[in-house]
């Protein structure tokens, strides 16, 4: 590219959905249906992007005919489960209730659109639950979900712009009026003017070192999910909650995959002894909940020399084996099955080693029950505000509805007034594309990952966190003026890495403020869990360039 000259394209719309994942597409469909002009800007291809790209199989929902008429009781039961409790930390009870109330409608909609939500003609619930406890997750066949949702969006006249990565929101003093992005293949800047913006950019997958050291794409989710929405939202001045809370998932060691609850087996140590108390033989209804209670146990086994832990499906009935293999395909695990076939691995005979994956920060964009963020005209849904497929689908729908309604009344935005901001960002990307020498995104990303792991990883303390923060800040400064992108693919990775640097900094700042030990937030300098922080969240927003922290009750 010559002289850093990226051409500029302006697009105008009522509603802009950033990210065409589960939440983004659901939002787009709903907003389109309500008559809004809708654009989806998606950095990959909506047919196979995001964490739902190759299917999911567990849909958290409330079906009265299955769970009984008392939704409050069901909700209470759900939050007993350690996974849902952690996943929904930082979500208000009113948002949870609104989601559950909506969820069955969405299940029926999906079923009518051709995403099979019934198994052998019935609502089938399994996994993510203890014996004797309420079953929370509906089994569904998600393999083709992205195709169905994409087609549905197109039917509603939604314009899908694939290969567009949005990297900043544009706002005036009242609220958000658009966003700026790059084309990930062509030398182009895209400016989008919108009356309302919905964020659905998903997870943060590249902040901590992944399962295979030095192999950045060995993540269970996606290489391209880098918390862009959270970072943009923070920079635009909206509130995030809980960036300091870590989560760790469990699955096949090194071949990182989600779907732990789809496995029908028992986690055993190398001598065949179950490592948890919940199951002693494979049971298709109730998988082994041990990793949901304490995923890091598997890592502890390795560290203490107890040795590896195995997912042991031996003794499984033929029927349950077929059941598991069927659902593993819908859960996006077909490549794992192909690999087992090729290697002659038979789960009926061969226990497969499981491991604890890298940390991911739980931090979310704070929303209310209408999916509104703390900035006018800006909405969020999905993993970046409320994790899992059921919540993503349901809240995407709600966000689409709220945004379309708002856009009807909102004044036409004047994007040209943000010209200075647009030019500033054009310069930033132009410089990265024209620099001849310097670190690439990978160098920057790995440098960040190692600081995250060693200074805000499994052990955190004031001295570690303060040192780590200063290292990340120094790195950020250096990267901002030296990083090089040879082409638009690399530029996309560079912009993602800049977002990760912002989010990494927030992890340090918030982790230092949480002066207690809670779950995986392990502070040897504050070893007790502070009862006064029960039910509270740590909110963070940027005011005049500085992070401002506040503890608030999450009701």
């Amino acid at each position, binding site marked *: 590219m010559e002289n850093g000259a990226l051409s500029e394209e302006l697009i105008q719309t009522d509603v802009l959905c950033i990210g065409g994942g589960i939440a983004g597409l659901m939002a787009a469909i709903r907003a389109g249906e309500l008559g809004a002009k809708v654009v989806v800007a998606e950095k990959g*291809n909506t047919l196979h992007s995001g964490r739902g790209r190759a299917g999911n199989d567990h849909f958290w929902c409330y079906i009265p005919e299955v769970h009984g008429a008392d939704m409050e009781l069901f909700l209470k039961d759900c939050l007993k489960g350690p996974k849902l409790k952690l996943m929904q930390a930082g979500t208000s009870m009113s948002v949870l209730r609104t989601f559950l109330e909506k969820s069955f409608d969405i299940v029926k909609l999906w079923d009518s659109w051709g995403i099979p939500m019934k198994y052998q003609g019935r609502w089938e619930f399994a996994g993510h639950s203890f014996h004797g406890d309420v079953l929370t997750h509906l089994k569904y066949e998600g393999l083709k979900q992205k195709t169905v949702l994409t087609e549905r969006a197109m039917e509603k006249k939604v314009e899908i712009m694939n290969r567009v990565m949005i990297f900043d929101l544009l706002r005036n003093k009242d609220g958000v009026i658009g966003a700026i992005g790059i084309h990930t293949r062509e030398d182009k800047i895209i400016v989008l003017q919108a009356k309302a913006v919905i964020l659905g950019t998903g997870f943060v997958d590249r902040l901590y070192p992944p399962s295979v050291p030095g192999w950045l794409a060995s993540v269970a989710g996606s290489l*391209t999910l880098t918390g862009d929405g959270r970072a943009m939202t923070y920079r635009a001045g909206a509130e995030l909650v809980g960036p300091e809370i870590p989560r760790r998932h469990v699955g096949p060691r090194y071949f990182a995959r989600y779907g732990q609850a789809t496995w029908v087996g028992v986690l055993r140590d190398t001598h065949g002894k179950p490592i948890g108390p919940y199951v002693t033989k494979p049971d298709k209804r109730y998988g082994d909940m041990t990793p949901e209670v304490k995923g890091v146990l598997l890592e502890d086994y390795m560290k203490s020399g107890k040795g590896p832990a195995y997912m042991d499906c031996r003794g499984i009935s033929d029927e349950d084996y077929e059941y598991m293999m069927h659902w593993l395909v819908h859960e996006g695990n*077909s490549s794992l099955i192909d690999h087992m076939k090729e290697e002659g691995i038979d789960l009926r005979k061969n226990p497969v080693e499981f491991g604890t994956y890298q940390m991911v920060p739980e931090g979310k964009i704070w929303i209310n029950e209408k999916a509104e963020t703390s900035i006018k005209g800006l909405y969020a849904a999905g993993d970046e505000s409320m994790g899992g497929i059921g919540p993503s689908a349901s809240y995407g729908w709600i966000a689409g509805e709220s945004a379309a309604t708002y856009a009807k009344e909102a004044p036409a935005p004047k994007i040209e007034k943000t010209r200075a901001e647009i030019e500033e960002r054009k310069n930033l990307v132009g410089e990265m594309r024209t620099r001849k020498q310097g670190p690439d995104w990978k160098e920057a990303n790995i440098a960040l990952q190692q600081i995250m792991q060693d200074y805000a990883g499994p052990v955190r303390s004031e001295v570690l966190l303060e040192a780590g923060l200063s290292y990340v800040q120094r790195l950020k400064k250096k990267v901002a003026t030296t990083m090089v992108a040879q082409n638009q*693919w690399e530029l996309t990775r560079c912009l993602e890495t800049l977002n990760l640097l912002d989010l990494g900094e927030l992890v340090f700042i918030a982790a230092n403020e949480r002066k207690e030990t809670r779950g995986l937030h392990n502070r040897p300098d504050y070893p007790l869990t502070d009862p006064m922080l029960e039910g509270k969240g740590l909110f963070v927003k940027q005011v005049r360039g500085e992070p401002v922290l506040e503890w608030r009750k999450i009701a």
Partner: protein
Amino acid sequence: MPPIIDPTKCTGCGVCVDVCSEDVFFGSKKGKVPVVTYPEFCVHFNCCAYECPEEGAIKVRIPLPLQLLYKGGDR
């Protein structure tokens, strides 16, 4: 390294290039066998293989460091 394309079966239709969200095939030209520009950024969800219209033209190879660790069937 993943993914692997069999040039005798591939028609260069570009469908895999189109659907790969990691854009592992960045820079590929329609009508030609795709180039695997960023093989180490493949996340192995088989999406290219799902969409490829030619049986057996593309498959995803799992690199050595990611391969499953398992026990023999003996107890």
